[in-house]
């Protein structure tokens, strides 16, 4: 048996190994995106001609390419970008010449806030829902729940968004149509501003959450069902635990183990799922920033955002794996 000191060392070795792998993974991701983006036809100069219909003369386009260093060979461009990025200098956007870090920092709170609450709701609603379904598995309620969750999971978010806006904003007038805050909200007291923000976030949040919620609830149901048939649960019942306690305190803890990885994967999925929702609700987040930067071939912003998202994803996966290792003693001894 490995003692406590040996366990701690094992965890540290585990983390060190994962971080060591993460660094080249990050470089690989960013290099791949850099290559793909540059190989795609079109560049910032040709993208300029598209918006507003005014054509940019080729000489001006050439001058632009030279100003941005786009006429240098690709490896040289990547090395220049990477050496600056290593010092956390992601350059300036081609579109508005502001620092990339500033543009990301401006949009980040809106996306992070929305997605954090979406994740929280997924967990807070998904777990009880999955457990309730598992406890009443096979009943008409469970079958109806299954069908309902499957329908939810299958409907595209932009359609649901349009439907929700038509019903709750246009027809009933309960919620705002778009945006983050009402006109003049900057001058309101804090509580009123928070309520205004909540009203504006309600529909985008609902559209972001329902898909991952349906997916997560079904996984919880499957996991709890699988664990409920195990011997230790029957043993707990035999020792006098109620049915509810047997599920919540025993089966659920083991059922949640594999779901830690699912939650880790939900983080990047939620971040990227925002593009359509942000366009529809005019929510000024990272999704819109990314989409606009791709169309405009804004290489610094795309690379900056890719790096940011890749770091976040790798960190989320590492955290999930760590949690898993902490929660499941079997892994620590390997």
């Amino acid at each position, binding site marked *: 048996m490995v003692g406590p000191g040996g366990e701690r060392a094992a965890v540290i070795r585990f983390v060190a190994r994962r971080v060591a792998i993460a660094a080249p993974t990050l470089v690989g991701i960013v290099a791949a995106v850099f290559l793909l983006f540059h190989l795609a036809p*079109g560049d910032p100069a040709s993208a300029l001609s598209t918006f*507003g219909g005014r054509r940019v*003369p080729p000489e001006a386009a050439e001058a632009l390419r030279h100003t941005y260093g786009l006429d240098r060979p690709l490896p040289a461009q990547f090395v220049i970008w990477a050496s600056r990025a290593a010092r956390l200098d992601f350059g300036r956007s081609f579109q508005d010449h502001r620092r990339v870090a500033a543009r990301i920092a401006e949009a980040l709170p809106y996306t992070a806030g929305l997605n954090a609450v979406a994740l929280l709701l997924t967990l807070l609603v998904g777990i009880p829902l999955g457990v309730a379904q598992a406890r009443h598995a096979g009943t008409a309620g469970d079958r109806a729940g299954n069908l309902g969750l499957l329908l939810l999971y299958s409907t595209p978010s932009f359609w649901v968004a349009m439907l929700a806006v038509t019903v709750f904003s*246009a027809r009933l007038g309960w919620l705002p149509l778009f945006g983050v805050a009402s006109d003049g909200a900057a001058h309101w007291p804090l509580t009123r501003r928070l309520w205004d923000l909540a009203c504006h976030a309600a529909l985008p949040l609902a559209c972001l959450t329902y898909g991952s919620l349906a997916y997560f609830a079904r996984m919880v149901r499957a996991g709890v069902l699988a664990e409920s048939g195990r011997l230790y649960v029957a043993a707990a019942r035999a020792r006098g635990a109620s049915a509810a306690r047997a599920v919540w305190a025993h089966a659920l803890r083991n059922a949640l183990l594999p779901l830690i990885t699912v939650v880790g994967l939900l983080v990047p999925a939620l971040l990227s799922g925002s593009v359509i929702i942000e*366009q529809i609700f005019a929510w000024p987040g990272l999704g819109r920033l990314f989409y606009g930067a791709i169309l405009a071939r804004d290489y610094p912003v795309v690379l900056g955002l890719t790096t940011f998202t890749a770091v976040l994803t790798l960190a989320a996966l590492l955290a999930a794996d760590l949690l898993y290792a902490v929660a499941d003693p079997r892994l620590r001894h390997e």
Partner: protein
Amino acid sequence: MRRRWVWMAAAVVAVAACRRAPPPAPPPVGFLDESRIGVPRDGGTLYRRLEGEPATLNPILQTSDYEAFVLAEISRNLIEIGPDMKPAPGVCDRWEVADGGRTYTLHVRDAAVWEDGTPVTANDVAFTIREIANPAVPAVLFSSNFADLKGVDEVDAKTVRVRFSEPQSDRLFAFNFPLLPASRGEKRDVTGNLDSRHPLADGPYRLAAWRPSQSIELVRNDRYWGRRPHFDRVVFRVLPDPTQAYRALLAGQVDEMRLSTEQWRQARSDAAFRRCCRLTAFYDLSYFYIGFNNRSPLFSDVATRRAATMLLDRPAMIRDLFYGMARLVTGPWPPDSPACDPSVPAWPFDPARARRLLAGAGWKPGPGGVLVRGGRRFEFDLLYGAGSSSSREITEIYARDLAAAGIACHPRPIEWAAFEQRMDSGAFDAVASAWSGDPNPDPYPLWHSSQAPPHGLNNLSYSDPEADRLMKEARRKGDFSKRMALYHRLHRIIHDDAPACFGLQAAEKFAFSRRIGGLMTTPVGPFKFWPGAAAWWDRGASGPR
């Protein structure tokens, strides 16, 4: 047996009776001028819609309409474009052209001041022009106009002399740009944040707040030297989604928006829309065309290009795709441009004549029913920018009519930036696109043979020595009507050479809130002329808020 027939007959009758009534006749397409209707009132806030976020409010770095709309309210152009599309006084109230079009002397108004009270001087004009001509500054919309700049002299505090090497008498449109203040700092970087995010206004409004990706708020500029605007505030809302923008229009959260053809149809039968808003349609200067690469072996001869033009069924498209709200274009200038020769007829839709022309040009029927000439099949990709539904519909119909004549055409949508790159490099056989309207009718950048790829915007590589000569001569003509006479001849020559099929012009459709008074629409739209939206006022008529 008999009863079944009776039921079937009844069903047929019922279905026939339920057939929708034909759509009402489209309203007339024409320009609005309500600038003298009603008494203007001061006050209120105007809510405008932007389809995208302006990247910058630096006047010389602007590239898209989103920037132009906001800049039009906070700054005045050196020389404006008036409602008649001719140059009009702006910051400059008079000017002289001398030395055969090589020297332009501009006089800045005495009253012109910036929002901080300092006067607008010749130094500001000279500074702006030098920055535009500076190769390190990406002033992509204006730099080509000053490519042959020889020098800028400040004759006195309010007079600037601009000297060019090429004689060109129609350069006034080149001065249609707003100014940068020179005295904001000796060695500032013009591409930096100061001019982009904190512009100094010299127009009717000044920047009050900019919430990135959300809204831009302007308030009245009390130091403005011209006529006071009627609205106190203007708020530009960034609303990319057109369905949401329509709902915002109904809710009174925006006062104007451009409508697509489908939205137009929906709005006409929408009672809620009629209560709050009104529709207007007009023809601007943009039009749809099918361009042939004149250097491609398929399209290098006039007869083939004319035949291809006669296979585009424009009357049917006007009727079925645009519900009658479109009209034919006959040459490089649309009908409302003064450079268009109205006596030039459009090529008809005539498949029989087209087939005869193709036969006469050496095309013979080949395997698979596709024409062949000199061992080459008449087969090509017709490229267009993805996302344009009218391009898709038009090219599908065109491909069908071409196939009936033995031409294999494959419509291919391409993402916009990639499409522009193919256009600029001339790497295509045929494209379907639109030319956006430019009040400057000078055809040289688009049609002169020296501007073929990769040097300029003559993407179709059109080349005709007589046309080249006329274009250069027109640039030197100081007299407007003489220049237009030359353009009329060019219109006929280019129509006859058919380097493109100059297709059709769809009417621009706008919705305005009923409370807006003083509306005016022109061939450059409701905004891109002086005074544009700065002359509107709040009628106070109620609409849902």
